[in-house]
C-alpha cells in the first residue's frame, strides 16, 4: 500500500499564531526553528520562525498529513513556493491586532494565489480576544473584494477545537460531500 504524504500549509504574518496552531493540532511535538527575533519582528514577539514549523496529524495505517508553517517574515517568501508543493490546502492566519490586517490578507492571498486557485484556503482570525475590530464581517468583505472565497473563522491558535474546526472548514470546502 502506498502512502502519499500530503500536507497542509499554515501561513500568515509574524505573530499570527502559526506555530501555536500547528502545535495545537499536531500529534507530535512540533519541529520548530524559532530564532530570537531581530529587527522589527521583536516588537511583536520574542521568538520567530526562521525556516518552518512542522507537525503531523496521524490517520492510521502509516498515513499522515503533514503540517507546515511558513516563516512569517516576508523576507523568507522564497520558501513558500517550495513548501506548498504537494499541499492540499492553505490555512491563512491573520492577527487582528496588526496595524493593517487587510494589507496582510492582500499580501498573503496574492502570494499564494496560484496555490489557492488549485486547492483551497481557509482563514483564521487570531487575537480577537485582544481586539474585536475589525470584525469578521469586515474580513469577509475584504476577501470578496480580493476575489477569493473561503471560510473565515475567529480562532484561538492555542485551542485544538478551534484549529480543528478551521481544518474541517478547509476539508469541507475541498469536498462538501465528504463522508466519514
Amino acid at each position: 500500500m502506498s502512502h502519499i504524504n500530503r500536507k497542509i500549509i499554515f501561513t500568515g504574518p509574524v505573530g499570527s499564531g502559526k506555530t501555536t496552531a500547528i502545535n495545537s493540532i499536531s500529534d507530535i511535538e512540533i519541529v520548530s526553528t524559532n530564532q530570537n527575533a531581530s529587527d522589527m519582528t521583536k516588537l511583536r514577539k520574542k521568538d520567530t520562525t526562521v525556516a518552518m514549523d512542522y507537525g503531523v496529524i496521524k490517520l492510521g495505517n502509516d498515513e499522515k498529513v503533514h503540517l507546515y508553517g511558513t516563516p512569517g517574515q516576508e523576507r523568507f517568501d522564497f520558501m513558500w513556493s517550495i513548501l506548498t508543493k504537494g499541499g492540499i490546502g492553505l490555512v491563512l492566519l491573520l492577527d487582528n491586532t496588526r496595524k493593517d490586517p487587510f494589507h496582510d490578507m492582500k499580501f498573503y492571498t496574492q502570494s499564494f494565489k496560484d496555490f489557492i486557485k488549485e486547492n483551497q484556503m481557509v482563514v483564521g482570525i487570531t487575537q480577537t480576544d485582544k481586539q474585536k475590530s475589525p470584525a469578521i464581517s469586515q474580513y469577509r468583505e475584504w476577501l470578496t473584494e480580493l476575489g477569493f472565497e473561503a471560510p473565515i473563522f475567529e480562532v484561538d491558535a492555542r485551542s485544538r477545537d478551534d484549529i480543528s474546526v478551521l481544518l474541517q472548514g478547509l476539508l469541507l470546502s475541498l469536498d462538501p460531500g465528504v463522508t466519514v
Partner: protein
Amino acid sequence: MGTQIKQPLKVYLSDISPHSQAILEFFIGSTGGKSFTLVSTPADAEMYITDFDFPGSKEHWETEHAISAKPCIVLSMEDPNNQHVEWVAKPITAQALITAAKTISSRMDENIAGHVSVSTPSTSAARPNTIKVPETTKAVPAEPTIATTNTSLDQPQVAPPPLPKIASGQSPFRKTIHTKTPAIHTRAPAFHEDDGDTSVVVKAEATQVLTTSEAQTTPALDVSNSNQEANPKAQPKIQSKTKPVATDDIPSEQTEAELEASKQTRIAQAENAQNRWALLCGIEENVTHATLKQNESFTYNSENYFQGTLIAGLRLAKQTKQVVQIKYEPYQFYICYDEGLVFSPIDPGSDDYAKLCYTKVKPGQVNLHILTSPESTDIREKISSDANFTYDLESFIWTSCLLTSRGRVPSSLDCEDLYLLKYWPNYTRIENFPFAMKIAARWQKRPYKVADIAKEMDIPIRYITAFYNGAIGLSLFETDMSIVQQKSNIKPKKKNGLIARLFGRLTKSESPS
C-alpha cells in the same frame, strides 16, 4: 553573468552565525541547490561562504586563503574591498548568491582551461579542483558529506565528524555547523504502532520539501545581525518530541467508579446537546418539500418575535454607527456593531432566553432606541467592564434566530427560490448543531432550494431551515442573482479518500458537523 553552472559548487559554510546558517542551509537545500551543495569539511569544499561580520572570520579567511586560496563568497554589510573574494552585500538575496556562484564557477572553468596541470584528489569531484592544496590535505580520509537533502532544519542530523587537520594541524576555519539533533523521546506505551516513526517521517518529508523546488525567486535573506546572533543563546531552538495523543488514553489509576462517573457525564452531555438542538432546530421529522409551507405550524413570521426587533436593531446600529438599545421589559439589550458585541442581561444559552425568543411579542412590548454619543460612551464603558453580560454579536444573532424558528421556515421564504451561501458562519464562535458545517460547505458551492439540499444530504429538513434562519439573520446569502445563476451548474468535485479520513480523524470524539 549569464553562465550556467554545470554542477553545483561544493561549498563549506564557515564562520556563519546560526541564524544565517539556517537560512543558507535552507536556501542551498532548495532554490540554491543547482548552484551549491554543502560539504561538511573545508577539505571537501571547492569554495567557502563566510560572514565577515562574524567575529574573527576575516582573520580565519586570510589564514585559509594563504594556504588553499579557494574561492570565497563573503557576506557582509560593507564592501570588504578584497579582489580575492566575491562580495554579497547584506541583506543578501537568492539572486545575489546565485550570481556570485556563477562568477566563481566561471572563474574556475577558466582556470581549468589554462591551468590543467594541477591535480588535487577530490572526494567526488567531476570538476577538478584547480586550486593548489597542500599535500597534507590529500591524506584526509573521506568523510560523510552533508548532502543537500540532509540539511533540513527540521530533521535530525548526525553530529559532524572531527575536523580534518590541514597543514599546520589546525583547522584554519572554525567549525560552525551546529548539531541539530532533536531530542526524540521515547514514546508512551499507549501510542499506536504507527506513532513510532516520527523521526523517519520528519526526515522523509523534509527531504521532499527541500529537493522539489526549482522555483527561482529573489528573496531578501537578512543575515545582518551576525554579531548579536553569535551569542550561543541565539541559536535556533529545534525541538522534536512526541506528544501524547489524548484520545483513547485512559490512565491506569482510574477506578471503576471514576469510569462510571465519566460515562454518566458523557451521557448527560449528550442529552443536554440533544435538548439544545431541539430548541435550536425543532424536532419535526416528517416535513417534506411538499408539506413545508402547507402546515402553519411549520412557518413563522419573524416580525412577531423578538428576532424581528433584534434584526432591525442590528441594521440600525450598522447604519448609524451608534449603540442601539432594545427595550423588552424588563430587559434592556445593547447592540454595539463596531465592537461586534451585544450586552444582554440574559444568557442566550439559558432556557429563559429560549422562551423569550419563542414567545410572540405584543404590540409596543419591544422598542428600539438609538443612544446619543454620551450615552453610547457610557454604555461602551459599562460593557467593557462587565464581560459577564457581553456576547459576540454574530453568535447572539445566530442563536436568537434559531431559537425563534426552531426549525420552522419564515413565511417570507419562497421554497422554489434558489439560495447560495456567500459567507460561512463563524463556526468557532456560534452554536453548532448536526450537519451545520456540511450544509454551509454544500450551500456555498452552488445554489439550492431549501428542500433540495436536505434531500441531497438525506437529512431532516429542520437542520436546513435552522441554518437558513441563522444565515438570513446574519445576511450570509448571496444577493446578486446573476452570481446565483452563474453557479447553478457547478458540480462539486469529489476528492480522494484522504479528505474523508482526515475529516474523520478531526471529528472523532468531537461534536457532529
